[in-house]
């Protein structure tokens, strides 16, 4: 089970991408859990995640979240702008997998 957490200001615009990523993961037969939260919950929720992706408009959060994520030994990255804009589920999902490595 791969667990991917998306975060933005209130978790609204990233939730768009969640649907697309879930669709894609399902189509390749991966078992996943993907969910979106606002910036304040992100620190709490990352405990349950294998990787954290941030909406590009909140990319100034990266440093802070990465510091927190070190505790759980997971990576935090900013979603590629083009993938985010086009709600490209495949691209964002692949980005998440790359960050997760062999987990």
């Amino acid at each position, binding site marked *: 089970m791969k667990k991917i957490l998306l975060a933005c200001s209130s978790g609204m615009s990233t939730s768009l991408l969640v649907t697309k990523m879930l669709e894609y993961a399902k189509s390749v037969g991966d078992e996943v859990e993907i969910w979106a939260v606002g910036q304040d919950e992100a620190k709490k929720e990352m405990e349950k995640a294998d990787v954290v992706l941030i909406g590009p408009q909140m990319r100034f959060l990266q440093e802070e979240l990465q510091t927190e994520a070190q505790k759980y030994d997971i990576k935090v990255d900013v979603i590629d702008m083009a993938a985010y*804009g086009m709600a490209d589920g495949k691209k964002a999902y692949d980005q998440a997998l790359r960050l997760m490595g062999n987990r």
Partner: protein
Amino acid sequence: METKVFDKLSKFLLPIASKLNNNRYLKALRDAFLLALPLTIFGSIAVVLTNLPFLEKMMSTDHLDTFRSAFGIASQATMGIMSVFVVFGIGYYLSKHYKVEAIFGGAIALTSFFLLTPFFLTPEGGDPIQNVIPIDRLGAKGMFLGMMVGFLSTEMYRSIVQKNITIKMPAGVPPTVARSFSALIPVIITLSVFLGVNIVVTQVFQTNMHDVIYNVVQAPLVGLGSGIVPTLIAIFLIQILWFFGLHGQIIINSVMDPIWNTLSIENLNTYTETGEVPHIISKQFIEVYTVGMGGTGMTLAVIAAIILFMKSKQMKQVAKLGLGPGIFNVNEPIIFGLPVVMNPLILVPWIIAPMIVTLVTYLAMSMGLVPPPTSVAIPWTVPVIVNGILATNSIAGGLMQLVNFLIVLIIWFPFLKLIDRMNLEKEQQKDKENQKVS
């Protein structure tokens, strides 16, 4: 060339955005307003219901008055005393940030605020009535004092706790009991300071902190913020930040919200009492008339322009993707998909359109063509037209948005057409190449 300049600017803005977003005081303030938001929405529903335009035709004046006063408590108990929630919220969230007992932080902030509040009311030309708190001190008028006291009292409280001047309990004492004792010293010291301040201000200077902060800080700042020029500057900065792909509102609003929210409460309190709205600019003006038409930059008009008049596949696809969320004022697909971000061709309409719309709306409202927002709180995801009518309690508020829609569409049109033509050329070239291959 251009991208290099943009990259540099972006690198320059990023740390500023990060600092503002992560500043502990601004963060506590943002969370405190968020705490008050659902409560004000509840109060707003009551205001909207009791002010529906057709009620006057359906009910006699007596019945309407009874109906209004019966429901009036719903807004008084929420927006009417909003400073209470903000003060408590600041104390709570700031304490939480420092990892000290947050609920005590909230209670101490609130008590410190009350310690500076006059518990009497002097009616005009009458003797002071003792043992009452004037409600406006807990609402709009006390907002800035409340915020200051919230921050100061929490800072005092947490620094005493962190210095560990607490009463240690022997092992075996239940943890809650131990906690209540260990909170005692920081509480007593902090509250004593505010009591002392109040004694000096009331006894020596014959005034109170509410009046001092209101006259010296709040009235000038809020007066400044209610003007059109500072509003346009704020809009400009929000658009610039988004142009670099940074969440403009998170950054700018954390500074402007105290002012905009204070204006809102003043509006709403006056509106429920007299039916008049004193300020055009308020939190709702910003939310409904600069964002509430498809999101930042009012991009629902851009989506319409693309769907109706543009031909390139890439743009059509973005517009199709952006339409659903756009109706509910979420527009990241347009911002990152079109894209708006770092796109020199879009910089001009992106910044000009919202500023012109803001100016036109402001003028229409100051000339009395459209009533200003009554400041009932409306969730920012309520779609265009509906939010305009709800915000102003008038059809004119929705019609204003139609005018704004056309303004945005006209300003964007030539720029979109240019991008469309470039995209079409690219797409045709690709098609030709594909044909050659096959």
